[in-house]
């Protein structure tokens, strides 16, 4: 039997496959297609202290091998999550991680505290990298100092596994990763979306209501992979890699580059059962290459 269990600094996943926040709803949207308990875990959509309506429609545009979104963290707030969603999913035998988003340090703290009380949520992913909200969001993720501040404050308020999600829209992502590590993060995940834009030349208007939005999908993979490789070399905490993972080969590339686990995002929209296919593909790869333990390939580049 091969081993696919990975240990993210104490957070044990039965396999390295997580789903990316905002692309997998609350898991339940995918239960017709995926046995959720087969996943290493899933990360629920960006959750804020208060209800958010998000940005006006249109919020999506397809680009070459990618898509732009400007959802803007639409969600009903952490208390709604706690009372309405959590009871539906808490008994699943997998890791459910809440993506905590905010526009001020106070919001991040307040939201993290509420999630801290949910006994079946072993970790949060602190989203300091959302390009789709006016205040805060990405601002925390584009300066080492701001990242350090918010992570260290949340660290005090949150006792379980603290994963920090990094923005790729920076000159040197290793600096931000190191700041998060220094501030007490247990792991980092990268990347969030790249800020991009698209225009309809017939109407001569942007395709998104917000002009710019977040770019995801296979188009960003080469850049995401490079960043994961850089960060894995720069920090001593586990790195969770994502950005354009569409199949098992992509997932393995991220692990070779240094990711201990990976997240699948946009690919879920195209093949709702892609996570299971990726898991199967990883098993095949291990067999073909005589790999007994998936951890053996992490960061060999």
């Amino acid at each position, binding site marked *: 039997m091969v081993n696919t269990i990975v240990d993210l600094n104490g957070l044990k996943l039965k396999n390295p496959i997580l789903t990316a926040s905002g*692309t997998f709803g609350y898991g339940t949207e995918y239960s*017709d297609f995926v046995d959720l308990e087969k996943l290493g875990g899933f990360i629920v959509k960006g959750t804020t202290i208060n209800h958010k*309506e998000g940005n006006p429609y249109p919020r999506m545009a*397809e680009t070459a091998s990618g898509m732009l*979104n400007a*959802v803007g963290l639409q969600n009903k707030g952490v208390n709604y999550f706690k009372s309405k969603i959590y009871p539906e999913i808490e008994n699943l035998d997998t890791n459910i991680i809440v993506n905590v988003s905010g526009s001020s340090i106070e919001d991040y703290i307040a939201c993290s505290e509420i999630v801290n009380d949910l006994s079946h949520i072993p970790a949060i992913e602190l989203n300091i990298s959302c390009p789709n909200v006016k205040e805060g969001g990405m601002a925390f993720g584009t300066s080492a100092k701001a990242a350090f501040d918010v992570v260290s404050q949340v660290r005090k308020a949150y006792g379980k596994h603290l994963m920090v999600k990094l923005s790729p829209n920076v000159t040197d992502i290793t600096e931000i990763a190191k700041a998060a590590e220094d501030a007490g993060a247990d792991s980092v995940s990268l990347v969030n979306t790249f800020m991009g834009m698209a225009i309809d030349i017939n109407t001569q208007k942007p395709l998104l209501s917000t002009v710019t939005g977040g770019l995801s999908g296979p188009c960003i993979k080469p850049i995401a992979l490079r960043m994961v490789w850089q960060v894995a070399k720069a920090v001593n905490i586990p790195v969770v890699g994502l950005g354009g993972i569409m199949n098992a080969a992509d997932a393995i590339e991220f692990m070779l580059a240094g990711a201990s686990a990976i997240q699948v995002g*946009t690919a879920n*929209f*195209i093949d*709702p059962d892609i996570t299971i296919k990726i898991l199967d593909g990883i098993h095949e790869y291990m067999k073909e290459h005589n790999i007994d333990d998936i951890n053996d390939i992490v960061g060999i580049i």
Partner: protein
Amino acid sequence: MKSIVDFTVKSNKELNSSTILLIVESKEELPRILPGQFVNVKIDNNSVLLRRPISIHDVDYKNRQISLYIKVLGKGTASLKELEVGDIVNILLPLGNSFDISLGKKPLLIGGGCGVAPLLYLAKVLFEDHNIKPTVLIGARSEEDILQVNEYKKYADLLISTEDGSLGEKGYPTNHTVWDNPEFDCIYCCGPEIMMKAIAVKSKEMNIPCEVSLENTMACGIGACLCCVQDTDKGHQCVCTDGPVFNINVLKW
């Protein structure tokens, strides 16, 4: 329950230069499909990333077939036009809510452009399962764009309006004489937003219940991405799960 099904192309017919009728067959029993529901079709070549949402135009449970009525607009639909008999198409279905059959007893179905697509199956269900012969009003630019006429006539009284007057009454569906002496007590409408908004205004004025089917751009089609939202009196709702059919009273039009 939604599922991902590999359908086989049974026929792919050009109805006019920019519209195709694609009939696909499943190996397994079809799930129960409600009128107004749609599918999300995977585009096989890599020219596009995301699936494309298409209404269910007709359902044949016996032969396990569904038909899709598709306007070729861009790369995704162009690629569907290339499908040949025997090809496999991966389809996610059934998606979305459905028309509310209990809205009235004498329904008027109004379709413009490729918005006519879901109305055939709605007419069929009304006729076959509810003993209601609806009136269907199709509007288009010109005669060439009035398609599937005989299909609609199986289940409905068919009215036609064309902008150039080449078939039926000249003008838009909103100007049709069917409005002069309304014998309908509810409206189901699908078409360009500008048309649906005009119908919504009229039906509100006349106090006739009205549902419209929206076509917002989608990524997932299953309520996960929140890309397809419509502003409603309950805030942003997903067209793919809370819709595509909305009662005009909840819309902020």
